[in-house]
């Protein structure tokens, strides 16, 4: 009886975790970094972060991109998947202009792959 109750509680806990993982229509993960257009970075899931705090304005797009690409490379070096927030409801990539386009290009150049189902960019080794 006790085992049955324990199994039932475990089952409920799993349901709760899975439900939470779909709360923002993307998989939940603690300390996940999210890229995207600024307007798309306003609705982050629990435990998600952007790189914006590492990007103080340097005064020009050129200097800002140097800084941005350097920060993104550092983040890529951690080898953890990144969520793309500039997507449509099917996970297709949208707003492919400017810095976001360059960020996606940088990820692709380094062998990162995008999965529309998860909305995640994953490093080569994690494919």
């Amino acid at each position, binding site marked *: 009886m006790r085992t049955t109750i324990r199994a039932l509680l475990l089952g409920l806990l799993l349901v709760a975790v899975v439900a939470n993982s779909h709360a923002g229509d993307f998989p939940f993960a603690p300390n996940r970094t999210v890229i995207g*257009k*600024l*307007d798309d970075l306003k609705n982050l899931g629990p435990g998600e972060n*952007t790189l*914006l*705090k590492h*990007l*103080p*304005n340097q*005064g*020009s*797009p050129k200097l*800002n*991109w140097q800084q*941005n690409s350097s920060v993104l490379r550092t983040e890529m070096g951690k080898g953890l998947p990144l969520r793309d927030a500039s997507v*449509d409801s*099917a*996970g*297709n*990539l*949208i*707003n*492919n*202009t*400017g*810095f976001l386009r360059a960020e*996606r290009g940088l990820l*692709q150049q380094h*062998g990162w*792959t*995008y*999965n*529309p189902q998860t909305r995640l960019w994953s490093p080569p080794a994690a494919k």
Partner: protein
Amino acid sequence: MTAKDSNNGRRESLGFAEAVAQYIAPLLTAKGFTRTEQTAYSVRFQSPAVALAVFHEPVSYELDLVYALQAAPSERYNLCDMLDTVLGIGHKEQAFFQASEHDRVVYCIKAIADYLRKYGDKVLIGDPTVYQRMREVTRRRNEAYTKQVVQQPIRQAAEDAWQKHDYAKVRDLYEPIEDDLTPVEKKRLDYAKSHSRSG
């Protein structure tokens, strides 16, 4: 918004909000919009049918429009979407603007205002037919781009396998994307299939 200028005054000296007020606001006012918010980075307007914001992004200095029907606020579109819908994908109009100097900001805002004047009439009045078409055009465009991004590493891996005469791997990589292969890739797949039957 967490990215702040070390010198807010410098950002305001670029004259973004003033340029929007001078060149874009009159067009919107004539269509029943009122201004609802203004910062050094964005100016927002609303009409009964449409919400529209003009952005000057703090980090990238990109300038763009974002707008949506009031009835469907999550379906947001930008300047590029409007031009792709009205002119067709592959048009030659410039849809990307970036400016960190006052004169350039004014030039870009004038250009965006010109586009709105020439192509944005139905977008601004919230014509449902135009929004329906925009939904379809952008969906197809975004799907095609995403497919290209997803398939590029597969194509590259297949190319590498082809160079190494690893035909079983070529077959395994190409088969799931067979419908999207180029004629050359299709020929390679056929060749790989006939040379890797046991695999």
